[in-house]
């Protein structure tokens, strides 16, 4: 029953949009919202019906039919495109054909990831239509205003209304060229939860779980079951396994070496390992493969000291080649410092000029402060430490830096 209303919202929107067309998305969402409201009253009064999904479908379908019929301007469209609406309102998709529901959800996910929609709008559209979050809930989770979420959503809906694409909802298989965009949106959704500074664990975990739910949908459908999808899903599971241990009881951030490894979630670790194994087929090696590989090295190391740092440094080098970023260079230096000594780590950054966005970013200075301190360059270490503390984006990060960077040299 957990999140039943929210997930039913996503299912019903996807199924009904398929039947009446994407142009009626808002009417569909209103009808589904109304059906859930009706259910709330009716189910409190007389209990949850045996087939609650079909019950909800019937109520939403009938109210949608009423609204669309009233709208005379759309009568013709209705007659020509929505023949199935004139049935008796029985849900055409019985649980026996759960695969079809999966098709509709997946199709909706691909619709949300239409490249003509700006990326931040794709994320919001997916959260609204597929995950069943309200505008207020999305704003709260993404640290933005309701007005901003509304604007992003309106932009997405306008694109869908204007677009010639997707209105006829082609078979799922034809969407495969959009797979990279779908991966990007799912990973964005995951990171909104994983990197969130919300102190409540439940709020962060919820977005991560939604991303994993959509990723699993993708990975278990023949049209999108590809090694890259498996690698993304592995990566999310391996990160999610460590989510609860990243913070102490007061919400303060914990370093990897400070985390209690017994808190890591065994089920996520198991799933992560299984999907990582499946991702190793074919000849593609993507950033998700590299990142999942790095996460796996951390997850399955017996301790911080016994981590295979050289393997991690090698994976960061591969990541740099696939997706060049000075952040990967920086992470590689950290891994080299653990595996081969701080001198080697520091040397790997020789001649690396950080781009403007990273120069002055706390991560850059924090790593340099740490490496300089460990090789005994006290003055340079202090200079970078001050820069890092000044640039810390939050109290939690500043506290972590203070703890990490003031340790006396071993």
């Amino acid at each position: 029953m957990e999140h039943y209303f929210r997930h039913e919202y996503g299912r019903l929107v996807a199924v009904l949009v398929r039947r009446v067309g994407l142009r009626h998305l808002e009417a569909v969402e209103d009808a589904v919202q109304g059906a859930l409201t009706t259910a709330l009253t009716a189910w409190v009064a007389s209990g949850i019906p045996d087939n609650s999904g079909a019950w909800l479908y019937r109520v939403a379908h009938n109210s949608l039919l009423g609204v669309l019929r009233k709208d005379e301007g759309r009568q013709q469209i209705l007659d020509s495109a929505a023949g199935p609406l004139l049935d008796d309102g029985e849900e055409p998709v019985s649980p026996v054909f759960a695969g079809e529901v999966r098709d509709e959800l997946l199709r909706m996910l691909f619709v949300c990831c239409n490249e003509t929609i700006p990326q931040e709008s794709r994320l919001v559209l997916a959260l609204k239509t597929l995950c069943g979050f309200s505008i207020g809930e999305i704003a709260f989770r993404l640290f933005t205003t309701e007005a901003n979420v509304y604007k992003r959503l309106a932009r997405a809906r306008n694109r869908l209304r204007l677009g010639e694409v997707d209105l006829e909802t082609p078979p799922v298989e034809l969407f495969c060229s959009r797979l990279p965009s779908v991966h990007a949106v799912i990973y964005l959704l995951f990171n909104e939860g994983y990197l969130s500074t919300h102190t409540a664990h439940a709020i962060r975990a919820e977005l991560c779980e939604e991303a994993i739910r959509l990723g699993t949908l993708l990975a278990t459908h023949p049209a999108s079951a590809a090694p890259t999808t498996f690698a993304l899903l592995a990566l999310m599971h391996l990160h999610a396994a460590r989510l609860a241990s990243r913070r102490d009881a007061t919400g303060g951030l914990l370093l990897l070496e400070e985390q209690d490894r017994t808190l890591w979630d065994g089920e996520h670790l198991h799933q992560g390992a299984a999907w990582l194994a499946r991702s190793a087929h074919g000849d593609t090696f993507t950033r998700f493969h590299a990142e999942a590989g790095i996460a796996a090295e951390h997850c399955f190391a017996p301790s911080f000291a016994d981590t295979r740092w050289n393997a991690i440094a090698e994976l960061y080098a591969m990541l740099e080649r696939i997706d060049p970023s000075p952040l990967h260079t920086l992470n590689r230096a950290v891994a080299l410092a653990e595996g081969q000594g701080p001198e080697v780590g520091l040397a790997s950054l020789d001649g690396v000029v950080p781009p403007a966005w990273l120069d002055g970013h706390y991560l850059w200075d924090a790593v340099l402060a740490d490496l300089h301190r460990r090789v005994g360059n006290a003055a340079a270490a202090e200079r970078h430490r001050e820069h890092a503390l000044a640039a810390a984006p939050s109290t939690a990060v500043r506290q972590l830096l203070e703890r990490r960077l003031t340790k006396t040299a071993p």
Partner: protein
Amino acid sequence: MSKRRYLVLFRNRPTGGQPGASPEQMQQMFAAYNVWKEQFKDAILDMGDKLRSEGRVVTASGVADGPFVEAKEVVGGYMIVSAENYDGAVEVVRACPAVHAPGVSLEIREMTGAKM
């Protein structure tokens, strides 16, 4: 001691385009209602129903159509509870999750007919 019956009217102030409860909030309300219903199962005689917003008003001079959009409050639902007195009825109604919904007030009126 004999119990009295009370009609509870749910009054809604139009929320002026404010969005209703989200699915997640509805789920929480559903759970809260079930707890409340169980807690007061002896006092709740009839869970009643929600009322649609459109309607008809009949007077000697004729029949007028709703919805009554100009009204500040509309009756949105009802239920019937039993209690020994108003204090008892208020206790049941105050614990009802609907009390916390925005723009909702609950009016309790004793029914004059046969006592139980």
